[in-house]
């Protein structure tokens, strides 16, 4: 990657940050004040020392020397206090920007299509919204403060050196220009390598995260050796890329160290020459050296921080990519759904996923308050229908209507408030029972939450908790059985008081007793609401009003359950027959 290209990238990268910078003017002013006072003191300190040298080796009373030494100590303490203040403010700014950025990034990622999440591991996303953004925070807390102080210091040094001697002044200026040019040219040198490095480190953590999640599967099936073998490949890739990024960055460090060492030597040589010429005193010669080496401190830290900045630049690059990614579903609807049970209608809906057709010209209508069971094999399009109603995707052609209006006209919050979807896997969060039921919506009334839990059959469980709904659930609800977790999911839906309930694969993987509890809870939940139930067992749809059977993305049967069951030619009747024919009547996986 050539320097122009990376310069272009770095410039664009800052655009991501611009809105965050504008709102923090006061903080920036405070940082600026502490930086300016600090730099002023730092410029003054070598002057005191130069005076001391000249006067000590001249002929002044000792009291004068002691006075200068005391001033020197005082100015030193002042400079340090300012340094603490500026770093503290810088860190505060960095963190508050990073936090806002993290929230916005999380919100943005959450808004992306479900498809994106299917292809990106949670570990990799943690690396994006935490690792990359941390690097940005560090850029402010460490780098920005130092770079700005450094620039001010540089300017002050130019002026003050010229005041002493023109040749010395030109030496410092030309030297600095040379350094700045070199640093500028080297600036983007390692960005691409650093980006690759962070890419492989995301891969490394993603690998670890998935294996930790699958720890029982791996251990009980003796796959530990295989995991460690595969880990070797991941490690090797990480090692190769990361080492090469380090070495690229080290070229920048070496250049910087070399330049500053030569700078001090140059200052010493020029100072010595001027003293021999009788143009300056020893004190001034030492002052020039001090100013020259004053450049070293901040800029050596800058080069140390260069790694962080390059990480931040690479991180910002990836954040830009992230923010540039847009959900395909637009959220511009303006109309609100009614508070009645909702009507659902598909009008010639076709949906293709990665140009693979999933739904093919599907039309049907579900009357308000109807309970319908969706049957069909994996891949028949059942869950796609529910995902279109939940607007995770938009139809490729045709219209999905909800409550009589196209779903794209429906306001997002209204859709979410009126349509409850219970997914196959239930994830619980570290937090209170209240947080887990209300999904962190604080406005929910306690009694409503307790009521939801009672209605759904978790009343006894709730009573057994030490702090009621404020009881803290351990990491990801470890204390709950899968049946209880499903009940919590039902309680979440109940709390919403939705007009439409969508349920995917109810009561799979639970024992009969829990199934009874769950089925009772489900009955209470869907009473007086429209319900779409993706069923894997005929028992689940034993009480629904209608049945719809899908095959290869088409509706092959849709009608009243009783009528279908009674009609000898219907697929549903055939399924019931098949089930009876078997050893039991309760289950048929479709």
């Amino acid at each position, binding site marked *: 990657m050539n320097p122009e290209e990376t310069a272009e990238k770095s410039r664009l990268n800052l655009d991501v940050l611009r809105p965050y910078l504008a709102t923090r003017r006061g903080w920036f002013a405070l940082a600026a004040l502490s930086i300016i006072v600090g730099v002023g003191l730092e410029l003054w300190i070598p002057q005191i020392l130069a005076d*001391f040298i000249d006067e*000590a080796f001249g002929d002044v009373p000792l009291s004068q*020397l002691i006075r*200068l*030494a*005391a001033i020197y*100590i005082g100015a*030193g*303490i002042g400079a340090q206090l300012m*340094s603490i203040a500026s770093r503290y403010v810088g860190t505060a700014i960095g*963190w508050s920007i990073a936090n806002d950025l*993290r929230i916005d990034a*999380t919100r943005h990622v959450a808004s992306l299509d*479900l498809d994106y*999440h299917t292809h990106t591991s*949670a*570990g990799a*996303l*943690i690396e994006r*919204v*935490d690792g990359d953004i941390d690097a940005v925070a560090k850029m402010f807390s460490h780098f920005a403060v130092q770079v700005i102080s450094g620039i001010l210091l540089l300017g002050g040094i130019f002026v003050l050196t010229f005041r002493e001697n023109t040749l010395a002044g030109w030496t410092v200026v030309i030297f600095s220009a040379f350094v700045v040019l070199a640093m500028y040219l080297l600036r983007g040198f390692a960005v691409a390598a650093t980006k690759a490095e962070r890419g492989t480190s995301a891969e490394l*953590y*993603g690998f670890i*995260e998935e*294996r930790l999640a*699958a*720890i*029982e*599967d791996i251990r*009980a*099936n003796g796959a*530990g*050796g*295989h*995991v460690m073998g595969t880990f070797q*490949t991941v490690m*090797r890739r990480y090692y190769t890329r990361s*080492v090469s990024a380090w070495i690229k960055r*080290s070229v920048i*460090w070496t250049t910087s*160290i070399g330049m500053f*060492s030569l700078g*001090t*030597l140059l200052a010493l*040589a020029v100072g*010595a020459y001027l003293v021999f010429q009788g143009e300056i005193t020893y004190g001034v010669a*030492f002052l020039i050296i001090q100013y020259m080496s004053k450049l070293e401190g901040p800029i050596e830290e800058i080069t140390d921080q260069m790694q962080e900045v390059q990480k931040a630049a690479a991180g910002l690059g990836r954040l830009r990519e992230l923010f540039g990614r847009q959900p395909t579903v637009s959220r511009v609807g303006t109309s609100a759904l009614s508070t009645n049970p909702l009507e659902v209608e598909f009008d010639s809906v076709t949906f293709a996923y990665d140009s*693979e057709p999933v739904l093919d010209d599907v039309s049907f209508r579900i009357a308000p308050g109807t309970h319908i069971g969706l049957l069909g094999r*994996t891949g028949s399009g059942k869950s796609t229908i529910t995902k279109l109603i939940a607007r995770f995707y938009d139809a490729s052609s045709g219209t999905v209507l909800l409550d009589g209006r196209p779903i794209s006209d429906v306001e997002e919050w209204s859709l*979410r408030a009126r349509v409850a979807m219970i997914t196959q896997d239930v994830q619980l969060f570290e937090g209170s029972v209240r947080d887990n039921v209300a999904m*962190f919506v*604080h406005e929910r009334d306690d009694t409503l939450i307790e009521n939801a839990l009672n209605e759904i059959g978790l009343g006894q469980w709730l009573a057994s908790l030490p702090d009621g709904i404020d009881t803290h659930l351990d*990491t*990801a609800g470890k204390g709950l059985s899968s049946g209880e977790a499903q009940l919590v999911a039902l309680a979440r839906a109940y709390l*919403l008081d939705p007009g439409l309930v969508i349920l995917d694969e109810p009561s799979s993987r639970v*024992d009969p*007793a*829990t199934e009874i509890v769950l089925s009772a809870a489900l009955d209470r939940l869907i009473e007086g609401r429209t319900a779409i139930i993706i069923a894997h067992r005929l028992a689940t749809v034993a009480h629904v009003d209608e049945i719809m059977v899908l095959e290869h993305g088409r509706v092959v049967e849709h009608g009243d359950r009783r009528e279908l069951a009674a009609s000898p030619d219907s697929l549903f009747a055939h399924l019931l027959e098949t089930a009876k024919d*078997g*050893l039991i009547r309760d289950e048929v996986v479709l």
Partner: protein
Amino acid sequence: MNPFPVAWRISKPWPFMFWINVFLWAGFHIFPVIIGVMVGRVFDALDQGDQNLAITGLWIYLAVIIGRLVLFQSSILSYSRLWHRMILLVRRNLLDYLMRAPGARVLPMSTGAAVSTFREDADQLVDYVENLLDLFGLAGFLATSIWIMRSISPTLTLWAILPMIGAFIATRALSGRIKMYRERLRTSTESVTGFIGDFFTAIESVKATGTSGPMIDHLADLNEDRQRSALRDTFLDQTVRSLNRNMANISTGLVLLAGGSLIQAGQISIGDLTVFLVYIPRMTGYMAWGGQMLAQHFRARVAVTRMMRLMVDAPITQITDPAPLWQDGQPPAPVPAVLSPERRLRRLTVTDLSFGFPDGEAQGIRDVSFTLERGSFTVVTGRIGSGKTTLVRVLLGLLPRDSGEIRWNDELIRDPSSFFVPPRSAYTPQVPRLVSDTLVSNITMGRSLDESTLGEVIDLARMTTDLGQLESGLDTVVGTRGARLSGGQIQRSAAARMFATNADLLVFDDLSSALDVRTEAELWKRLFELRDVTCLVVSHRHPALQRADQIILMKDGRVDDTGTLQELLGRNEEMRALWEETN
């Protein structure tokens, strides 16, 4: 937990690389001592009007600079490799222990928090090693510069170093607080990363409920908390650093205070004074660095403690035990182990097996005893919370039993966790997990299977139809945690994975969402026709119960009854109730 021995052992696998780095970095840090001396010489030459002496001093100065650059670049070339090896060794060893070490293994924290131990704690530890490596250069610089200053004026040397020592002691006094703030920052960071991880894992429900707003507000609260911890940590850290750095000005000031009279008495030359003035900032810089190293010591201590918490029962040497990071070429496929006929399962005896969850978070088991005969089909059944899943997990050593005996034939099993693996046994958990790799590698898990065996395994697990639906069949990449497959497909893949192990004892925790009843019944039939296996199955389904040679009926963590279906239906009320309920 003292991180020093851990850090010390980390370098063991690469002693040559480690000591070369110590040597190179020490040179890099000590060279500037000569620079100080040369600056002094040049100033003395100015004082004496000796141009040649000044020029010689400048040449030596230049030579030192060039030498130092050569040292630096070669150190980086070697150190970048050493650093990555060290950090990969730590990460590898943590993962290896969790994946392979004997004993029951349950993550004591959320996956997100565990990943942050792999990420940040490993970093902290290796940064600490880096500090130790630099310590040689640091000590070398301080010792030689103090020696040179002392030869000029012992009094001024004392004035120069006293404040630095004072700062060091003050730093030490603040160390307890440093540690406390650091720990607080760590836990609040853990909450943030843990929550982000859980949030994205649950994204589908979050989207469906439209609650990403309030959940992100919750994240913002966690963020705030983390920011507060970070700022407190920064403030203390900066104060401590400043305390150290500020001493450069105080030291210089004191040297000036005490030196005025010595200069006027002619005991100190201009060159002597400049040596002090050049050394003092550098020395305080190094002292400050020493203070940071001290702080890093506490960070590393926290990091090591957390690593040990993650591994639960590992010896501390586990973090650093030498291990191959990778070999050239592909890692070797594990050799499929085969049991010798006399080691194959004849009878598995379980006696008085008990386990209670430490905080009573789920139903434990009490005094469970049963026997599995070779070739038999045993079903564990019971209501939810009766301890069925706990029973199989304790048996397989995924949870640590509190008491009880397990015998394979007549052999007493001490560590079920390392014993109950293929080729002896294989397991499909209730919620199987796949990883983002191809379907075929999720099934074979590195075992080399010939085409026909693979075909048989796929067929047995009823996956043939699924393969037709997947874009690239067996080579389909299944997505994160298998997210691109349906729940049933994941379960069937896990079943195929189990058949691929060709194990003697197969343990299924509920296949009900993978297969319909009839297919499941056929599966059992064909499995026993094709193979000489023993099955332990958690199920409540009729065909499984009807087929069972033995049913273990669990109730409240105990075995309520054991027998065939007919026997149990005849005499056990609970069994009759369960049987009726599923009807």
